[in-house]
């Protein structure tokens, strides 16, 4: 059975790299497990699944990863067929304060994690996010950044002669 990383890197489970990945069963299991709870949590803490997919799409765009963009675009489209949230991800449309604050944090933590300050968290609290939602958002941003590096390494190994 293939998982999210096989799918993104276009691997089959019995390909050489698919087999190599499975020499790290804990990594395979808990990477997929992280993906599941980050995008489909039992308790979303106030950060909705549509928002999670849209935030991930924004990160994929920032990282210029076409496969990751397509992946999160499809996920968002399935959750929000109207396409309303997808339009805000490009950053051209100003949105309401809460979503603006979320997108600003997505950009900051993806691009310049070392320049985050206490004020950046305070802005999210002011915008109405709970502690749970802020930690969920932080885990999501960090996870998609992780995922893009794993994917880049898998593609490198897949294509290297």
């Amino acid at each position, binding site marked *: 059975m293939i998982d999210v990383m096989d799918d993104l890197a276009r691997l089959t489970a019995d390909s050489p790299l698919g087999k190599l990945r499975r020499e790290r069963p804990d990594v395979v299991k*808990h990477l997929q497990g*992280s993906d599941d709870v980050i995008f489909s949590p039992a*308790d979303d803490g106030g950060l909705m699944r549509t928002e999670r997919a849209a935030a991930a799409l924004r990160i994929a765009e920032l*990282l*210029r*990863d076409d496969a990751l963009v397509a992946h999160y675009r499809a996920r968002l489209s399935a959750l929000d067929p109207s396409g309303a949230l997808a339009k805000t991800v490009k950053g051209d449309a100003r949105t309401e304060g809460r979503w603006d604050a979320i997108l600003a944090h997505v950009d900051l933590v993806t691009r310049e994690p070392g320049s985050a300050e206490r004020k950046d968290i305070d802005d999210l609290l002011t915008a109405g996010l709970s502690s749970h939602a*802020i930690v969920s958002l932080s885990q999501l941003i960090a996870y998609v*950044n992780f995922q893009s590096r794993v994917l880049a390494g898998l593609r*490198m190994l897949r294509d290297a002669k």
Partner: protein
Amino acid sequence: MNKPMRDFTHGELQWLPWITPVDLDSATPEQLAALKVTPSNRAVGAYSLVLAHDPEALGERSPLYNGIMFGQKGLPRAERELGAVAASRVNGCAYCASVHALRFSQLTKQPEVMERIQAHGVDAALEPRLKAILDYSAKLTRDPAAVTAADAAPLRAQGLTDLEILDLTHAVAMFAWANRLMQTLGAPADPAQPGRAL
């Protein structure tokens, strides 16, 4: 970006959260399970208590981290630590870089490697195998979209197997994750001046 590494070896590092941590006495069963808190083990730091606000994510991330950094065979542990140091330097997490530099030095008994990285960052001159690891780690951290099949060649030329390269990739990627949590949900405090952020 290349902040100097600090020596945190003389005292337990404090981390000052910007979100009120979960209070152990009122934590939910899910939070306690994710923290692996038991009646005999209540020693949990502020960082984990902040992450416990989302117990589902914490519960998956902890075993993932352990699998990546401590999984048997494959890339030697010290070289995973080197990947962690490179990522942390590029991401500007001086605290993370220092902690993992110390682990590298303890594992290898080669303090001069981390002294060089301390002085010259990810451009430090190292013996060829470590240099190949450092270069790939820095590039993968900085711009994953720029990594191509050609980047495998220097690693393979230094004898890294594909499993070792996969292990290195996982370690570097894990610090794209860890550095972001550590630096954006709070700040490491200076052990010499408790209560004061670095």
